[in-house]
């Protein structure tokens, strides 16, 4: 397999925001640049002998989705983003899960055993709404909140399903 296309990394968000069974909404339509910023937190300390040591405080991941055009055809996800932004919802109303799947193998191969995928709790906060001519936007920030688990997933027509 050659170098991975950008579309090999699929980021889904549970549009139910805490519902009994997740409804995965694929993030990325109209988004030309999206990165999970890991924000590594490290400290360098120096003792009285002038020896330095590095302390690893882990990561504080987040992602900014700058181009979300509010679209009623997005269903539950649109309704939720509208509710959070317009009603200034906070706390648990903004908590949900994300699913990241890395499509880095060929499902047609005999050795295929599902794609690696990770779920994690997140906080979704709209950062503004409105924007320039061309469409009503609700850009938002996803702040990762731990409880990360790895699993195996199948993707059919960009719809994820847990690999049996």
């Amino acid at each position, binding site marked *: 397999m050659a170098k991975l*296309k*950008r*579309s090999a*990394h*699929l980021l889904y968000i549970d549009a139910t925001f805490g519902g009994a069974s997740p409804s995965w909404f*694929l*993030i*990325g*339509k*109209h*988004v*030309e*640049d*999206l990165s999970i910023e890991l924000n590594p937190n490290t400290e360098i300390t120096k003792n009285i002998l002038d020896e330095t040591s590095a302390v690893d405080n882990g990561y504080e991941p987040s992602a900014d989705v700058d181009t979300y055009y509010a679209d009623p055809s997005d269903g539950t996800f649109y309704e939720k983003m509208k509710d959070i932004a317009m009603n200034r919802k906070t706390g648990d109303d903004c908590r949900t899960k994300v699913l990241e799947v890395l499509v880095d193998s060929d499902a047609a191969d005999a050795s295929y055993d599902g794609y690696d995928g990770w779920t994690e709790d997140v906080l979704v906060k709209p950062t503004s709404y409105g924007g320039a001519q061309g469409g009503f936007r609700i850009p938002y920030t996803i702040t990762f909140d731990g409880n990360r688990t790895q699993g195996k997933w199948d993707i059919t027509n*960009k719809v994820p399903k847990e690999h049996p």
Partner: protein
Amino acid sequence: MNIIERVREIVSGFPKTGELHQDITDSSPGGFALASVGDVLLSEDVIGGQLRQHSFLFYAVFSGINDFERIANSGFLVELALWLEAHEGEAVDMTVNGRTLTGEIAKIRTANGMLLALPQDSMFGGVQYQLQITAEYTLE
């Protein structure tokens, strides 16, 4: 309906056009044609959705004996530009290697409307105008 077919349909629907030919128009007044001249990828989002631009040349032949007629002809081009802009959002699709991609027209713009050709013999023949049309459309 792909982008060429869709834009042909939109132009054909303009009330002041007659039969719309492809690439070549009649030389007599009332002749209209649309030529497709190129398609480029403008951008691609992170899940593979594309924003593309297709360029067209629209030809129209009118009577242009005097200034009054030629002013009216220019007005036609302005009206057509507004007509096209009003059709943003219309659906398009494209089948490539058996896979059908769908999208919509994001923007239609016109530019460089100009008098392209004068009649050979006398001004009683038709004068030909050309208008560039660019349609931006999505596919996913």
